[in-house]
């Protein structure tokens, strides 16, 4: 991706190291492992796939540069200072570098360990700290998300949003809040009300008994996607168990360095979702799926949970992986639409799942898959990245929207709620709205024999009413 660099890198985050971290960035036996750091041979193959390097052309904002900072910090040659922390903070955690690295560097483990240490040893300035805490007080809790989403619906529907956006006050809001406002989701009453039932069964004898993750953000504002997922799995012969008692999987916290919160959530989720009767754990959100597959690693140091977590992790599948192996009970009805398929980073890079969603979408008669240029570059959503690093996320979102528009699709499909929010918001700021879907929604529509034109029209209208146009 060789677009001219117009964007400037973010200033160093204000904040300071806790005293001991000033000289020694990482605690002993914590932080990125020396052996993993040494895997990097400095070849630079990761640079062109790194979104922040693509944006800013600065070595310290590339995986190679970040690893070098880890190397120096681990050796005690540099401390945990604001500039260094900013370079690590600006990493999206998209793992495109893991895919492109010929030396097998496990960058994901390196950045997670580093982020943990930052959260423990770097004192962020109060405003930043409050904002981060606020995010993690709301997002992982679907009821709180719903509570926030409902008023947002009113805010939009009443026309208040339009007024606010035009107001001078809006322009004076801190960037982060302005961006939050832009990302206010495409909420519908239907989405808020809907969800996957606790249990759904196919008509014939089920081939598989699966537990479904309902998620936090997904559950709150994309409840209709969850409902569609349960329907589709059932249509493909699965018995679907979606316990209401489940909560957030901890992905957002894990990727942001809040490791112990994530571990707690992991234990709870394993308890709720898994038992001996469950064949597979099915996930329809890329970010969550990748974390669930890592539960074995996450809890390996806990003797009471290590084995259970490993067993659990081995059962986790992205919904497209499951569907690609099965046949639906009824025929898929034609949907004559061209679909630009967006590879969510946590599905493509983290889980290596690229072929299955395409295969499943292609099995719908009449669907043409269009490849988006520069697929390896993140859309900028990256968990809560678009909330914490709004300018970078905004730039990446714009570029992704441009790439999508360049193939002129009828629709865009992405298997992750964050990506859908981000790309929808950015598609909306340029030209005719392109309807966005989770791939499951398209399969669901096909199974239900929905009319393609209607489907697209309704989704476009929804996006328009969401102020995304």
């Amino acid at each position, binding site marked *: 991706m*060789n677009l*001219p660099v117009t964007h400037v*890198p973010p200033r160093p985050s204000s904040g300071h190291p806790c005293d001991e971290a000033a000289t020694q960035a990482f605690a002993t036996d914590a932080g990125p492992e020396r052996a993993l750091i*040494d895997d990097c041979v400095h070849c630079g193959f990761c640079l062109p796939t790194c979104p922040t390097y693509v944006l800013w052309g600065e*070595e*310290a904002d590339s995986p190679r540069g970040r690893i070098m900072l880890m190397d*120096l910090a681990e050796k005690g040659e540099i401390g945990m200072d604001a500039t*260094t922390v900013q370079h690590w903070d600006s990493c999206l955690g998209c793992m495109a570098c893991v895919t492109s690295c010929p*030396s*097998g560097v496990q960058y994901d483990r390196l950045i997670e360990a580093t982020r943990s240490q930052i959260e423990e040893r770097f004192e962020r300035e109060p405003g930043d700290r409050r904002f981060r805490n606020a995010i993690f007080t709301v997002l992982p809790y679907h009821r709180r998300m719903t509570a926030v989403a409902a008023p947002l619906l009113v805010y939009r529907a009443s026309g208040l949003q339009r007024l606010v956006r035009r107001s001078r006050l809006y322009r004076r809001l801190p960037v982060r809040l302005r961006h939050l406002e832009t990302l206010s989701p495409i909420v519908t009453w239907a989405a808020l009300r809907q969800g996957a039932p606790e249990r759904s069964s196919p008509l014939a004898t089920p081939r598989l008994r699966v537990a479904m993750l309902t998620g936090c953000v997904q559950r709150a504002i994309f409840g209709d996607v969850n409902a569609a997922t349960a329907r589709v799995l059932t249509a493909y012969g699965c018995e679907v168990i979606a316990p209401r008692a489940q909560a957030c999987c901890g992905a957002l916290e894990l990727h942001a360095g809040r490791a112990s919160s994530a571990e707690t959530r992991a234990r709870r989720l394993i308890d709720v979702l898994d038992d001996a009767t469950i064949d597979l754990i099915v996930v329809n959100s890329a970010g969550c799926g990748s974390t669930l597959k890592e539960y074995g690693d996450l809890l390996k140091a806990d003797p009471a949970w290590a084995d259970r977590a490993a067993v659990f992790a081995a059962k986790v599948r992205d919904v497209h992986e499951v569907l690609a192996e099965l046949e639906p009970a009824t025929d898929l009805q034609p949907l004559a639409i061209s679909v630009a398929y967006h590879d969510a980073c946590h599905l493509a890079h983290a889980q290596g799942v690229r072929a299955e969603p395409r295969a499943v979408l292609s099995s719908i008669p009449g669907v043409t898959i269009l490849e988006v240029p520069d697929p390896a570059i993140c859309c900028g959503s990256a968990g809560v990245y678009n909330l914490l690093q709004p300018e970078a996320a905004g730039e990446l979102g714009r570029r992704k929207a441009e790439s999508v528009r360049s193939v002129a699709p009828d629709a865009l499909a992405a298997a992750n709620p964050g990506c859908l929010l981000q790309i929808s918001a950015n598609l909306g700021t340029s030209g005719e709205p392109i309807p966005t879907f989770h791939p499951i929604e398209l399969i669901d529509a096909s199974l239900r024999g929905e009319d393609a034109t209607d489907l697209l029209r309704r989704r476009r209208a929804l996006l328009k009413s969401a102020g995304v146009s």
Partner: protein
Amino acid sequence: MTVVDTTGVLRVAEQARAIVGPDWVISDGAQLRVYECDGLTNHREVPGAVILPGSTEEVAAVVRLCHAHAVPFVARGAGTGLSGGAMPTARGIVIGLARLRSVLALDVPNQRIRVQPGVTNSHVSEIAAPHGLYYAPDPSSQQVCTIGGNIAENSGGAHCLKYGFTVNHVLAATVVLADGSIVELGSEAPDAPGLDLLGVVVGSEGTVGIVTEALLNLLPKPEHVQTLVAMFPSIQAAGDAVSTIIAEGVVPAAAEMMDRLAIEAAKTAAPIDWDTEAALIVELDGPVSEVQSQFEEVTAICARCGADDVRVAASPDERMTIWRARKSAFAAVGQLAPAYIVQDGVIPRTRLPEVLSGIRTLADEGGVRVANVFHAGDGNLHPLVLYDNAIAGEQERAEAVSMRIVELCIEFGGSITGEHGVGVDKVCSMPKMFTGSDLTAFDRVRTAFDPHGLCNPEKLLPTPRLCGEVPGFHHTHRVESAGLGQRM
């Protein structure tokens, strides 16, 4: 110990902020460290400051600052070079070209493209592809290495046997000289009058100026490509096959070889199942019937020369897999050992078997493993000397073996570097290949471009500080050549 004078650098950094904007001047400790080396990590030097200009004018203005304050500077592209060419000087500036990465103009009827130096090599071909054109020089790091870097090193790549090097594909360039003046070299039309200064700039390893724009030649994509990988029971047999192919008059688009150890490494980076002493990749391209008739010949030759297995790529994916295995071999070798040294020697192609056997002996004597990847068509070797720096003495032994391999190449009438450049890594081997007079002449050419010696100094030509005195090598004294003094 060198006394570092930081005042010049500080002044340049300060004034540069007004030129490029404060966001694009790096002068704080930790951030400077990430620029201390390129793809070669055993040569490191922390720069005084790093400046990232956004245009030709900004590059020129920054260089003028350096000139005014007598501060040396080093240009850097993606920092993937393998000779330390982008390693900073201790009291100098790094000028990073990563922000200059626009494609300026694609001229399809004339089959050429104008780009800024930060554009990656593969991106040029991506832009040209929809028009049935491509950019021929294809170094293995093409996804990340930049055109500016390619020009500095006169990069070749696997297909240079048939299609030549960067210098054969650069028609013109905008160059910022060491005093900050800007010249346009070359021409968009053939047969430009005057000296071929562009021909010297390409391959000058960033020591005579900074290229800020380049006009590149594009070729029509070949109608047909066919690739095979043949497994041979020995390097000798594979080498014979290559010789025979060439004797038959076939010029392969590429002929690459990997030995057992290199294949083992490549397996970690590409889904291959090759199990052999020597794998020979041969690729032919061109008009379809020409390729097909030649390919039959090549396949037959491989069989005649004792190939155990000849696999023809049956689809673009299979072809991509073969190339992925080859092109990721270097970095993948990092999975076999904690560290390695990569060499870049060249020998006459017909001496390949002897030299490889010589390398095997040196490796055994030195007690280190050497994986071999090489351009079988043109005799350019890449021995990868593996070592574990945790084992006492192993690094020294690896370096010694590495040096002896270079000397072996010279003994066989070859070169110390086929494509990676001399940089800092091989600078002290230059006197093994060139006499004092040769080096004196080189120095004169360099000084003509850069009288003050500010442009990537201490690279390419040996200095007393790095290598000791070289008999017969008379450096033009910088003060004299800059017109600042006179011999009495």
